[in-house]
Each structure stands twice: as C-alpha cells, then as structure tokens.
C-alpha cells in the first residue's frame, strides 16, 4: 500500500455541496434581486439554512438541487416582502459592473471597452433570453444543466438557446465590426 497523501477533500460533503450548488443558486438569486449584495446576502441565508442541523445532508442527493432552490424561493419571498423590490434586468448589471470597473482603473478599462464596444452593441441586439443565457454561461460560468435549473428549462433547450445566441451574435458582431463572418 502506498503512503497516503495527506490532505482531504471528499470527506467534506458540505464543501462539495457549496461548490456544486452555490454558483447556480447565486445566478438564480441574482436574476431576482436588485443587487449583487442582495444576492450574496440571500445566498448566505440559503446555505446557513441548508447546514443548520445538517439539513441538506438529510436530503437525498438527487433532490438537493430542488430542495435548495425551494429554500431560495422562500428566502426570495421574504426578501420581496421586506423590500418590495422587483427583479432587475441582467444586462444592466453588466454595464454597472463595467462602469464600476472603469472607475477603478480607467485607462485599462477604456481600452478594453473600446475593443468590446462592438461586442456590447451586438449583444444588445440579441433577444433578452439569448442575452440572459450568455450571461449565465459566461459571467456566472454555469454549464447547460445549471442554467437549465436556474431558468427552469430543459437542458437540451438551454443548449439550443446558447447555440442560437452565438450564431446570431456572430452575425451581429460581424455587422458591428463591418467584416465578413469568416473573419470572426
């Protein structure tokens, strides 16, 4: 037998559960809340509830996503009651983020934004659902299955949506840059 390698990972199910579900839950909460801070606060509440008396571990593995999203819905309902705030639109968030970023490091961001102006213009021409799916895929880094859970759609439909969105984006992007599709 080999000397064992020290260090642990799988004996820490709570860690694995956070890793697995936090990104998708955060994206879900982000869609429904007014700010990143609100989404973060709710995410903390969801996981505190999940690990309270190890509740989440008592849920069958196949049911955990649904259980967590259920908790998230309850937390959101409380949040709405507290704040009477309405869901925000995803792409607005992005421009906010870019502007905040610009305030932090003007030169770099302006340079980057110049190069990205065309892409931004092309993105804005996409239907909202296409924009949203790209946002979830690229900003949140979610896979098709996670996006499906966030949007309440089938995984196949999400893949198609991404494919359509990219196809359309490629066309618009080429327009914006004034070049043929083959150049992209």
């Amino acid at each position: 037998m080999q000397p064992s390698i020290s260090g642990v990972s799988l004996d820490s199910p709570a860690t694995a559960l956070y890793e697995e579900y936090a990104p998708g839950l955060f994206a879900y909460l982000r869609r429904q809340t007014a700010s990143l801070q609100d989404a973060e606060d709710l995410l903390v509440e969801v996981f505190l509830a999940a690990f309270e008396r190890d509740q989440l571990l008592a849920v069958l593995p196949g049911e955990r996503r649904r259980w967590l999203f259920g908790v998230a819905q309850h937390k959101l309902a409380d949040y709405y009651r507290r704040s009477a705030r309405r869901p925000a639109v995803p792409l607005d968030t992005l421009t906010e983020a870019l502007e905040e970023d610009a305030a932090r490091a003007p030169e770099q961001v302006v340079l980057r934004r110049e190069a990205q102006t065309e892409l931004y213009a092309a993105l804005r021409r996409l239907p909202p659902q296409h924009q949203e799916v790209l946002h979830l895929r690229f900003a949140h880094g979610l896979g098709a299955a996670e996006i499906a859970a966030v949007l309440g759609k089938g995984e196949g439909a999400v893949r198609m949506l991404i494919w359509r969105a990219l196809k359309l984006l490629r066309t618009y992007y080429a327009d914006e840059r004034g070049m043929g599709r083959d150049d992209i």
Partner: protein
Amino acid sequence: MTFDEERFTPEEQAQAERLEQEIAERLRALPFLPPGQRAASDTLLIEALARFYQPEGDEIQDRLRRARARVEERRAQSLAHQRRTVTPLPRMKSARERQAQMKVPWSLWRGVFQRSSLLASAVGLFFVVVLVGSLVVGVLLTRHSITAGHPQPSATANSTLVPTATPNLVPTPTPTSTPSVPAMINTIHMLDATTGWAVTNYNHVLRTTDGANHWQDVTPPTIDPPEGSVDMLRGFLSPSVAWIASTVPNGLTGSAFYQGVTKIFLTADGGQHWTRSVMQGYLPVQVVFTDGQHGWLLNDHGDASSAGRSADVFRTSDGNATWTKVASSGPSTGNRAGVLPYGAGKWGIGALDASTAWVAGSLYNSSAPGVYVTHDGGATWRPQALGLPAGAPSDLGAITGPPVFFNSQDGILPAYFASTANSPLMYVYVTHDGGANWKSTSIVGAEYAEGAGMDFLNTSQGWVSFRSSLFVTSDGGQHWTELPQSSALSQLAGLSFVSSALGWAVDLSDAGARLFKTMDGGRTWTVVPFAQG
C-alpha cells in the same frame, strides 16, 4: 410560438451539443492559451465573450467566496456555541440515532475556484482553507528560533514529545446537550490485513490491529482544536509511522486565512507517543514524511495572482524536532533557473527521501503537465515536463499531484485535467527508476481528490473512485476497468486496499460516513460496524 415549444432538427441539436462542448473546452483551456490563439471557428467569439464578461465574472467569484466565508463564520460561531455545551467525544449512539446527519468539516474549496479559472486568469486558485471555530482563539504558543544559521522569517517551531493521553477510549459521560452527530470514520488507511489507521469526523486518530473491527483512540492530546470541524493534514506510512498536522488560521478572511499556528505530530510507535512541533507562519498545504525522521512541508502564502503564487518548502531531518526552510518561491525569487518558480502552480509535495522531492501542480510558462524536482534537499529545483496520456485533449492543462513511492524505485504520480466536476479526467504516471522518468498511462473518468479516491498497492495494481463508481487497473493504469456498481455505495470518499482482493472504503451517504469492506477487489462491499475501544 415560444422557444420551448419549438422543435429542433437532429442536426441542429447535434450542432448545439458540439457548440456547448466547444464552449466548455475553450473556457477550460483559456487560462493556458496565449491570448488570441486561433483554433476552431467560434474560438475568438467565445474568448471575446469570456473577456467581455470577465469583470462581472470576477465580481461573482468574489461574492461567492465572500458568501462562503460568511457561512463559515456563522457556522463556526454556532459550532463554538455547541462545543461549549457538549462533552468532547460524543457517546456512541443507537442505530437510529446514527441516522442523524454527519457534521462536516469544511476544507477544500477547490471546485469553486477551479470553475472560475478562466475568470481568475490563473490556472485556478487551489488552496486549502481551514475553518476554525472562533472558540479557538486562545492558542498560546511560544516562539523559538530553531535551526541556527537558517533564517526563519515566516515560521518558527518548537518540538516536544507527548504521550498519547488516552491509549484506550475512556467512556465519556452522557452529554448534557446531545451533539447531533455520532463519531464516524472518514479516513481509513490500512497497512495490512490487520493493522491500520483511521481518522474520525471529530478528528480523532484511531488505530486498529484486528482488521478494522476495533479501534483504539491514539489522538495526540494537545491537538488544536480538540474537537471537530477542522480538517487536518495527515499521512500514514507504516503500522508505526504516522503524522497529523492541525492548523489554526489567524482569521477567517483575507490573508489571515493563510497564516496561523500549525502543530505537527509525528509518531514512530503506532501512536503511543507523538512528537510535536509548533510553527507559526504560513499554513501548510501538505506535510509528508519518508520515514520516522525525514519530512517535507509545503505552504502557500495565499497571494495567488496571474503572475504566480508564493510558497515555501521546509524540511525536517530529526523526526519533527526542527523544521528548516529550504526553498522560497515569491516575486523576489522570480522564475529563474534553479529556483522553485513563482509562476508555477505549487499545490502539493511528495518525496522519495531526505534529498529528493517533487513540488506538483503546474509548470511555469508551459501548458505541459509537469513537476519540479530537487535532488539536493530543496536547494535547487528543475522542471520535469511529463508527457500527455494517449487521447488527451492537447490544449487542456493537466494538473499534477504529488508522487507517492512504494520503494526507492517504484512510484506513481497522479494527474488530472483542469475540468469541471462533472467530467473528471485523471490518470497516473508510473516510475521504476526513482522518479527520473515518468511514463504516462490512460485517462480514466474518475476524479483525483488528493488521494481520497485513489489507492495503489504497487505500480501495477490500483483503484480509483468517482462517486459510487470504482475503476481498477492491474497494469499500472494502462487499462482501467469499471467494476459493477454496488448498490450499497453512494459516494466513495476513501479507499484502502492491502491486496488485490482485500480492501476498505469510506462511503458518504445520507446516513453519514460508513466503513465498508471488500474481499473481492471491490466488486461487493459489506458494512463494517464502527466500534472503538
């Protein structure tokens, strides 16, 4: 017609599948590619999107990390509160009570950071995070300068010999406030059919001499914190030699998370006595011993950026009495030849003996899998690039793990491709000349989890697990066979074989961690009741 009602042609569906795969691959590969590298048709667009969304992606990852720290902090407070009201070791409970869920330590947040690797622009932040209850602030330690002639800017150590407090488990009084979780084994390492080691979810170190039927508590008495909720580094080399390192960070957030107090305990007599050294400074990522005298330690400064990450290597030659810093890696040492490069991924350390050791992770300025090796006790290091296994996606970065040796010549070195948790790809390298040459083997659909789901008897016979799947090789990883899945298993979290037939495994299920035994090489498993004393 809404989108969901729309029908798609098989060709459209296939294209969508391919695109999703391509996006996933490009995103994974992005950190390893020079900017703007052109390959498939959608590559540039995908990369442009990735860069476009990066500012928000970074923010999201920051938020996820912050939320995690907040959950940890609140949880630590709650655990600390619980700990004040219960006796240290929970009594063994009835079977029904045992259904109560397992209290879990928090440690590696690897996946969260891995998935952000494209956004973080480094290979991924891969570090050990240790949670400590806020109760454990009152750690008193004395600073002693140790090895004369060696500067110790970030760490000091002292060492004492401490007998194990309770050779046999003393029955604890019934708790006034019942802890929610019974003691369970969550790590097992058997050395032969009768003798082995285990660690419980409360971080008690156990030893068996009757084939895991009964366990004796040999926990070092002054370990920090005395109970639960902290993962410890540990290793089990032989029936007599084992080590365990507890770490208490100075704080739960920021750089305070990477610095604190490390206590390293080493036994050479099966846990009857432990030597203890106390170090203050950056917390270790890994501690390994090659015998009862010689050991290596790798820490992480927690300053990972796109330029690199700082780390130090320490060594002991006197059985854990003194630890000497033998290598430093940081912005000031840079990436020049002979040093352990600042720009390299340094995520684990493995050693052959007192002079030869490997720091594993990723190479500086190269996407080839590789390790850094020293043959002079850590004074100089050189890169050792390793070949890719057959059929490997050539543009995906492979991450290496620390090698383990079975004797002075034969060893294995695990590696895996940076990928999502949903598509784990691992493989091993095999050496027969003490690590001078490493031969790559076949990829298997399992996850390399710091050894937890991997066990090799020798350079031929090995097992790896992924969730409840178990793969076996008898030709050193050239071919892997998936064993029929046992319905008894949920999530394998530790494997320990002592022959091609006899082995043990820790399985995590809703019932908590349970110990299983196989007598047919992993095909069928039966539960082993956990009995202490």
